[in-house]
């Protein structure tokens, strides 16, 4: 049962059809009985008329195919008859209506004894024709019912559709709500049936808003509470390095661990900020190439420290987007490329218009991602080869999850394919063209 509309129309129409047709059948049966009585009365009138004809005036003009037949018998002798009857009595001489077969037809018969003239009148009428006549008359009254059924179906469909419209409007209002809009529904719940759904939905939204506020507050507090001690740790470590300039393996590991901790906290906050519930996008017209160039410049030191060759090429490409989010996206892609490309490797970044929009491509000469893992790398906390990745780089597995979120928020798409180098991966983000983005 997939559609309420189809269910209502089918069931209502079936019940109506069933009742109307059964009623029509009952009506037909009653009408046929009534018609039978009328035809019998007519046959009696005919017999009475024949009985009162002057003696010897035989009605022989009735042809063989006439619907009426008769015989007049007096003291066992046939004194008058129509041309379409046999010479023997068509029925027994007992008064009343009956049925008889002669002349190749079935007849409704009447045996009538006329006391005044002392003779029997046996009158008959062909049943096939009398029923055909009666049926035709009755069917004329049934015929409009046949036409009314499809019209009724259309009418029921329209009425049910009209009745379900408030439900559709209610669904539209829910659908049109922004992801961060948890205000109560303003739809006027004038219908009794929808009032309860509306009240329940508003209570649910209220609970959801309270819960999200609590979560937002927690995230904000947690970010502050985590950043402060990490900052303090970094300062303390810096002071320690000043006091004891000779670097040991222990202090080096401590510095790396604190950096990693800081990175994880920042990534978690980025992931949180880019979730649809929290994302307050301020979309402006952005030159993606300029932005990419800025991010590349900011991250250059990372590539330089690993002696990696970074090439950038691009034309001015404009799109509507959130500057901070897009910078985070590129930063994550570049950081990922640098992390998994060995020392002395190469990374190419390009921004170009394509047939369908704007393509941002980051490709590296790293080991590449196996085909069966290309979909799963966007899952949170997923790392290719787990923590035993050949690069030996530490990470929290959130970078590409953040990238995917930002891609979705810009109605773009991301794909992974082998890079143009001997080995390696190419990440391609395709932004759709909007009217303003081509300005």
């Amino acid at each position, binding site marked *: *049962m997939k559609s309420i509309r189809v*269910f209502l129309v089918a*069931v209502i129409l079936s019940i109506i059809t*069933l009742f109307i047709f059964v009623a029509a059948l009952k009506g037909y049966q009653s009408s046929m009985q009534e018609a039978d009585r009328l035809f019998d009365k007519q046959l009696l009138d005919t017999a009475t008329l024949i009985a009162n004809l002057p003696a010897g005036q035989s009605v022989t003009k009735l042809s063989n195919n006439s619907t009426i037949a008769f015989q007049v018998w007096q003291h066992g002798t046939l004194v008058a008859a129509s041309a379409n009857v046999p010479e023997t009595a068509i029925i027994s001489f007992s008064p009343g209506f009956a049925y008889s077969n002669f002349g190749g037809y079935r007849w409704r018969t009447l045996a009538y004894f006329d006391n005044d003239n002392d003779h029997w009148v046996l009158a008959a009428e062909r049943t096939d024709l009398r029923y*055909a006549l009666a*049926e*035709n008359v009755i069917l004329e009254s049934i015929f409009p019912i046949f036409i009314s059924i499809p019209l009724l179906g259309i009418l029921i469909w329209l009425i049910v559709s009209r009745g379900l419209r408030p439900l559709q409007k209610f669904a539209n209002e829910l659908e049109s709500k922004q992801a961060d809009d948890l205000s109560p529904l303003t739809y006027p719940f004038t219908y009794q049936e929808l009032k309860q759904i509306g009240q329940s939905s508003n209570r649910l939204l209220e609970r959801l808003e309270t819960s999200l506020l609590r979560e937002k507050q927690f995230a904000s507090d947690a970010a502050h509470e985590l950043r402060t001690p990490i900052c303090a740790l970094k300062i303390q470590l810096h002071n320690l390095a000043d006091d004891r300039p000779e670097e040991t393996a222990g202090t080096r590991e401590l510095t790396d661990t604190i950096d990693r901790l800081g990175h994880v906290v920042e990534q978690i906050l980025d992931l949180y900020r880019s979730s649809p519930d929290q994302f307050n996008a301020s979309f402006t017209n952005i030159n993606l190439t300029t932005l990419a160039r800025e991010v590349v410049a900011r991250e250059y030191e990372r590539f330089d420290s690993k002696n990696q060759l970074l090439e950038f090429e691009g034309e001015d490409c404009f799109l509507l987007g959130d500057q901070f989010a897009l910078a985070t996206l590129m930063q994550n892609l570049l950081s990922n490329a640098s992390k998994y490309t060995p020392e002395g490797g190469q990374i190419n970044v390009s921004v170009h218009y394509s047939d369908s929009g704007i393509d941002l491509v980051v490709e590296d000469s790293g080991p590449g991602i196996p085909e069966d893992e290309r979909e799963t790398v966007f899952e949170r906390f997923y790392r290719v080869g787990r923590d035993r990745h050949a690069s030996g780089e530490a990470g929290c597995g959130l970078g590409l999850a953040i990238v995917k979120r930002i891609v979705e928020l810009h109605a773009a798409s991301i794909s992974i394919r082998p890079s143009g180098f001997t080995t390696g991966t190419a990440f391609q983000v395709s932004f759709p063209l909007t009217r303003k983005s081509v300005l």
Partner: protein
Amino acid sequence: MLLNSVILILQETLEAALLISVLLAINLQFGGGVRWLILAIVGGLATSALYASQMSRVSEWFEYTGQEVTNALLQTSITLLILLCSWTFLRCWSAGHDKVAAHYSFRFHLFATATVLLAITREGSEILVYLMGFYHQASFFHTMASGSIIGFGIGISVGVLILYGLFSLQGKWRVAAIISILALFAGNMLSQATLQLIQADWIESAGAIWNSSSLLSEESLAGKLMYALLGYEATPSGAQVIAYCTGIILVLLTSMLALKMNPTNGKAAA
């Protein structure tokens, strides 16, 4: 004339509508579309037209008992297909697992398509032969057409109500209703097949073992409805009663076996 048309068309339509309703209710379990049904109906109408057009030739087979023997063969095939439909349905339901449903989905649709196709071939050919008999008699055609519309309308309406009645049942109640209807339908088919073979003198009949005409006449509208829905006969022969019971028992045994073969025993789906 009108009543005769109503009764004949209603009887045939109701049988087909009942079968299609039950198979559609099963189809809900598999979550498939209804393309198989459209294919079966269109195919069934085509084969029924072919069968009706060749009826006189078919009748001459087996020393002029060809029509009876062919009908008996069709009815027996429908019974066997109903057993297969029951089996696939219950295997899927008792497993209560999407993968199992997908595994049995194709088989069920194949069996259901064949069942509907054969049922429509038989019912449709009888309707067509009846209608063709009146096609050239203009004086009766109007009455016969009206009777056919009324019979068809009532049959389809009852079918739709049975379908949504089955849809409204939940879990094991729906399964119980479906299997009960299929069992009665299988019994009805086997009983009709036996009657056809008795008429063809392929099976000997020792006469009626009871006569319930005084309670419910076979010729009345209610009697005809009961015949279409439950296979009611006022004067059945012993062979027919045995065939009817065999059909019911076969469906019930198949169902029990299908349920027993799965260790989850329907709990997952219930």
